[in-house]
C-alpha cells in the first residue's frame, strides 16, 4: 500500500518535472527538473527491475545532467537565438499541451493495464506521461538543449515501460550507453561552432 502510494507520488513528480521542463526557459531549472525526473523514474523502474539496475539508470541519468550542465555553464554567454518564433511561446499554450498529454495518459493507462496485466498503474501512467511530454517537447522546439531534454524524457518513459517487460542486463547497459551518448552528443552540439577551424584538418 505504502509502495503504491510512493509510486503515485513519483508519478506526480514526473508530471511536475515534465511541465517544468516544457515551460521554463532557464537551463538551470530544466536540468534540475531532469535530475528530479530521473529520481522518480528510478523508483518506478525498481518496481520491476532489481535495485542495482535501477540505480545504474539513475546514476547514468545524473551523469547526463552533469555533462549537460557543465557544458552549458561553460558557454553561459551564448547569444540568444530567435529560431522558434513560429511556435506560440506562451506558457499557457504549453500547459494546455501537458494537460492534453495527462488526459491521454489517464485514458490509456487502464487499457494498457488490461492488455498487459501486472505492470502496475503508476508505472504505466508515469511512463506514458514521460513519453507524451517528450514528444510534445520535441514538437515545439528546435533548440539543441531542449531537443536533447525532450529525447531524454521520451527515452526515460520508454525505459520505465520496457524495463517492466524486458530485464536483460545487456539491454539495460545499451540503453544506459544510449542515454549517456545523447548527453555527450548534446554537449558536443552545444559547443560546436564555438571553436575555431583547425587549419591542418580543414586543409
Amino acid at each position: 500500500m505504502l509502495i503504491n502510494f510512493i509510486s503515485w507520488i513519483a508519478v506526480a513528480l514526473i508530471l511536475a518535472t515534465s511541465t517544468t521542463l516544457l515551460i521554463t526557459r532557464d537551463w538551470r531549472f530544466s536540468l534540475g527538473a531532469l535530475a528530479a525526473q530521473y529520481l522518480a523514474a528510478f523508483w518506478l523502474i525498481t518496481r520491476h527491475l532489481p535495485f542495482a539496475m535501477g540505480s545504474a539508470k539513475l546514476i547514468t541519468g545524473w551523469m547526463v545532467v552533469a555533462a549537460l550542465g557543465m557544458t552549458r555553464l561553460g558557454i553561459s554567454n551564448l547569444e540568444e537565438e530567435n529560431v522558434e518564433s513560429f511556435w506560440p511561446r506562451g506558457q499557457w499554450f504549453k500547459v494546455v499541451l501537458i494537460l492534453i498529454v495527462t488526459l491521454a495518459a489517464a485514458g490509456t493507462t487502464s487499457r494498457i493495464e488490461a492488455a498487459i496485466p501486472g505492470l502496475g498503474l503508476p508505472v504505466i501512467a508515469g511512463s506514458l506521461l514521460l513519453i507524451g511530454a517528450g514528444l510534445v517537447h520535441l514538437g515545439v522546439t528546435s533548440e539543441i538543449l531542449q531537443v536533447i531534454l525532450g529525447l531524454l524524457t521520451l527515452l526515460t518513459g520508454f525505459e520505465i515501460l520496457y524495463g517492466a517487460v524486458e530485464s536483460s542486463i545487456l539491454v539495460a547497459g545499451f540503453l544506459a550507453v544510449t542515454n549517456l551518448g545523447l548527453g555527450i552528443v548534446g554537449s558536443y552540439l552545444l559547443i560546436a561552432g564555438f571553436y575555431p577551424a583547425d587549419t591542418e584538418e580543414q586543409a
Partner: protein
Amino acid sequence: MNAPIIWILIPFLMGILIFLFLPERHSPLAGGTFATILAIVALVFPIDVALLLGSISLKISSSIQFFGRSFVLNTADGPLLAVIYGLAALWFFGTHASGTANRFVSIGLMIVSLLTASIAVEPFLFAAVLIEIAAMLTIPLLVPPYQKPGKGVVRFLIYQTLAMPFILFSGWMLAGVEASPGDLGATTQAGAMLGMGFAFLFGVFPLYNWIPMLMEESSPYVTGFLLWALPTFTAIFALGFLDQYTWIRNTPQLISTIQLAGVMMVASGGFFAAVQRHIGRIMGYTAIAEVGLVIIAMSLPSSELVSITFMLLIPRGLELAVWALALSILKRRVYSLRFSELQGIARSHPLAAAALILAHLSMTGFPLLAGFPSRIALWQELAGQSLLISFWAFLGLLGLLIAAIRTLAVFVMAKEQVPWQINEDWPQVIMLGIGIIGLFVLGMFPQILHPFIRNLPALFEHLGQ
C-alpha cells in the same frame, strides 16, 4: 580466435587507437589497410571451420557470450563481412582524396564495428540499440567542432532515436503475436509499431527530410558514408524480422504497406531529384529512391528476395562512395554545390564530373553500369507481381535520369574558349579511376558478385530457402 572479437571488438579498439594516437594524415592508409585485412580474413578463413595450416590447426569460433546474451557470426556471415569491410576500406582509402578530416576513419571504423555487432547480437531485435549508438557516433563527423549544427543533423538525431523504442517494443509485442496468432488487435498494434520504427530508420516518406538537409549542411563524403552504412545494416535487420516472423510475410496488408512505402520513396525521391538545383540534394534524393527500391525488393513474395536485396545493396556502396568522393572534390573548388556555381566544371575537373555522372547513372539503372543488373532482376520479379508498382517505380527512376541529364548539361555548359584540363591531384585520379572502373566491371560482369551473394540466403533460415 573468435569471430565477434575479430570483426567487432578489434575494429572498435583499432578505431579508438587511430583516434588517439595516429595523425590525421596517416589514418586513411591505416584504417583502409586494416579494413582490407579484415575483409580478406573474412573471405579466406571460414568461420567455425577448422583449417590445417601445416601443423597448426586454426578455427575461428562463431559466438561469444556478453552479459548473458550472444554475439554470433557464423559461416554464412563470412561473405557479408568481406563485403562490409571491403566497402568500408574503399571509403577509408578515399578519405584523403576527398579532403575529409575530423577523424572520419577512426570514428568510421567504430561505426562499422558497431553496425557489425548489430547483425551479430542475439536476440536480433537488440540491434536497434546498436544502430542508435552508431547513429550517435556519426554526429561528430557530421558537425565539425568549428561548425554550428544545422536543422538536418538535429532531425537525424531525433528520428534515429525515435526508431529505437518503437522497434524494441514491437519486438516484445511480436513475441505475443506469435503466441496467439489469431489476435487481430495485437497483430495490428505490433505491425504498426514495427512499421513506425523502420519508417524512422529507413527514412520512409516523409521522414527523410533530414537527408537533403544534411547533404547541404555537412560534408558530402561523411553524409554519403552515413547514407551507405545505416540503410545497409537496417535492411539486414529488417530481413531478420521478415525471416523470424513468418506471419509478416504472410499478411497481404502488411506486404502491401511495405510495397507502398517503397514505391512512395522511389517516386517521390525521383520527382524531387528531378527538380533540384543543388547536386548534393540530388544525391540525397537519389539515395532515398534507392532505399525505396531495397524496400520494394524486401516485399517481394519470391525466393529471390534475399539475393535481389543484396544485389541492390552491394553496388550501392561503390556508387555512393564514387559519387560522394566526386562531390567532395567539386565542393573544395566551388562556393556551393548549386547549379549556378558549377557551370562548365567538367572542363576544369573532368574526372570528378565524369565519376559523378556515372555514379548517378548507375543508380538510375543505366545499362553497363553497376546498378543495372540488380534493377533488371528487380523489374523481372516486380513486373510479375504488379504493373502499377512497376510503373511508379519506373517514374521514380525516370526522375533520377532527368536529374542526371540536367547535371550533365550544367557540367558541360562552358564557354567555347575554356580549355579542358585535369585539376584533380594523383590520389583523386587514382581513387576516381578505381571507382569508375568498378562501376563498369560490376555492370558488365555482375557474376563477380556471385560468390558473395550465393551463400547470403543461408543467413536467413526461412527467407529464400
